[in-house]
């Protein structure tokens, strides 16, 4: 797979192809498998994503600690905020739904990780529904997202333990923004700007979950991460460009991750996890988990 988004964007523009097309061809060559096989695997992933959203919207799923759950249904049933009846609101609901399934040890697609698994399905399926995009184009979107994620894995990190939340929900938001920008008709270069405009907004985001568990704030970070991705998509499709090239934005995310104190890398030593209430809740709820498991 590509090691720089600039190279993929250049190839796509020269060959007059989408980034999804270029990504699928490259993957087929790397793995020695036909493009159809890879598309089929991505379609299965899309089906699992939709299944998780469906399951999460029922609202009766709770995490092992009971700290998170039921909020996707709350958002769906009470459309009174400023985003009522918008795709924006539907996307936030979907992001919460997937993450609630994840926290309850249900089946999801890690994209790129489980902790950030809500953003990409929320953005792609939410926008596909709002704009009647056929599945084939959504699968293309997953391919573009995979390309972006592969470049982030290569140049920076996709692990909260290594790079903080900017490497998980931040990377997921960048992937989703790029994929959706192309799905809605953006050019390869607009995809690059969408990723940069999105990830600049998540730089420095720490991984600070209570008790170190993928629950709080992870579930909500998938909703706020989706909101940042939507801002990136909106700006990029309007032709707004970001002066720092996307690969440099990704590189600096990696640099910031490496310099981030270990307390902010999934260890529950800092951030929200280290607040008085964060510590108290983790202590009470973790004790409960141990007790119920015997």
């Amino acid at each position, binding site marked *: 797979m590509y090691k720089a988004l600039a190279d993929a964007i250049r190839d796509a523009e020269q060959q007059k192809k989408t980034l999804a097309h270029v990504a699928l061809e490259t993957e087929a060559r790397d793995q020695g498998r036909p493009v159809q096989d890879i598309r089929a695997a991505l379609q299965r992933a899309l089906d699992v994503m939709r299944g998780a959203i469906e399951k999460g919207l029922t609202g009766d799923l709770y995490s092992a600690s009971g700290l998170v759950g039921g909020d996707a249904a709350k958002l769906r049933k009470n459309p009174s905020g400023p985003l009522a009846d918008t795709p924006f609101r539907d996307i936030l609901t979907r992001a919460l739904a997937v993450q609630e399934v994840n926290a309850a040890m249900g089946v999801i*697609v890690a994209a790129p990780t489980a902790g950030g698994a809500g953003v990409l399905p929320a953005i792609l399926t939410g926008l596909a529904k709002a704009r009647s995009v056929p599945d084939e184009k959504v699968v293309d979107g997953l391919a573009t997202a995979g390309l972006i994620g592969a470049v982030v894995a290569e140049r920076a990190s996709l692990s909260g333990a290594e790079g903080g939340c900017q490497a998980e929900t931040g990377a997921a938001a960048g992937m989703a923004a790029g994929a959706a920008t192309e799905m809605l008709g953006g050019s390869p270069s607009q995809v690059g700007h969408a990723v940069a405009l999105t990830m600049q907004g998540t730089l420095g985001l720490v991984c600070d979950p209570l008790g170190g*568990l993928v629950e709080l704030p992870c579930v909500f970070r998938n909703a706020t991460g989706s909101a940042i991705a939507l801002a990136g998509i909106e700006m990029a499709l309007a032709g707004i460009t970001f002066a720092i090239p996307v690969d440099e934005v990704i590189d600096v995310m990696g640099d910031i991750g490496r310099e981030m104190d270990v307390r902010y890398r999934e260890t529950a030593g800092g951030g929200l996890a280290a607040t008085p209430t964060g510590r108290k809740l983790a202590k009470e709820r973790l004790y409960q988990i141990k007790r119920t498991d015997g």
Partner: protein
Amino acid sequence: MVSLLDIIGPVMVGPSSSHTAGACRLGLLARCLVGGTPQTGVLQLHGSFARTGEGHGTDKALVAGLLGFRPDDERIRDALKIAEREGLDYKFEKTTIADAAHPNTVRISIELNGNKATMLGSSLGAGRVLVQEIDGYPVEVTGNLHTIVLVAEDRKGSIARITGILAEHDINIATLRLTRKEKGGDAFMVIECDEQPDKKAGEELRALDWVRWTRRLDKVSGG
């Protein structure tokens, strides 16, 4: 090489790709070393695995892997109870393996019918794993392909003999990495294959009198 399907995937039971799916894959790889569900297992957790493993279901996922469950198997949730039923006696220990070790690292020591194995591996994020050590030998196994690891005397023609045996069994080699510490010392080989090497191929390799040690590991990730 990062695969697109590693990024959009795996399909997995939550809540953490590194602490749950990656842990499950490490368990699956370890299981290959003894050829089935072990009777005993000592799992030494390092770093974030030790600190947050319980709430992330790392314990359940590692044991599920040892039981042969894949990362998308909903039985992972009940793996500890299932292990009791299946006669897998496991024990977790929290430890510091090395200061420089990856934050999500585990050393797994298992035994099945007197067949013992020890494996050191890390979960790198997004469900990707890396096995760094098997029975004390340094290796690099990702589980993205079927893999044979082998330690042999450093002698002429050894690669030709080994690749010949694999060809006879209709196994195509995807990658082959050969290293040695010194001239005439032990040669370490990691051979990644497109097809799953059968038991017979493994036995033929083991039967070579200049092969000191060899193990087969299954493909546990990738599309």
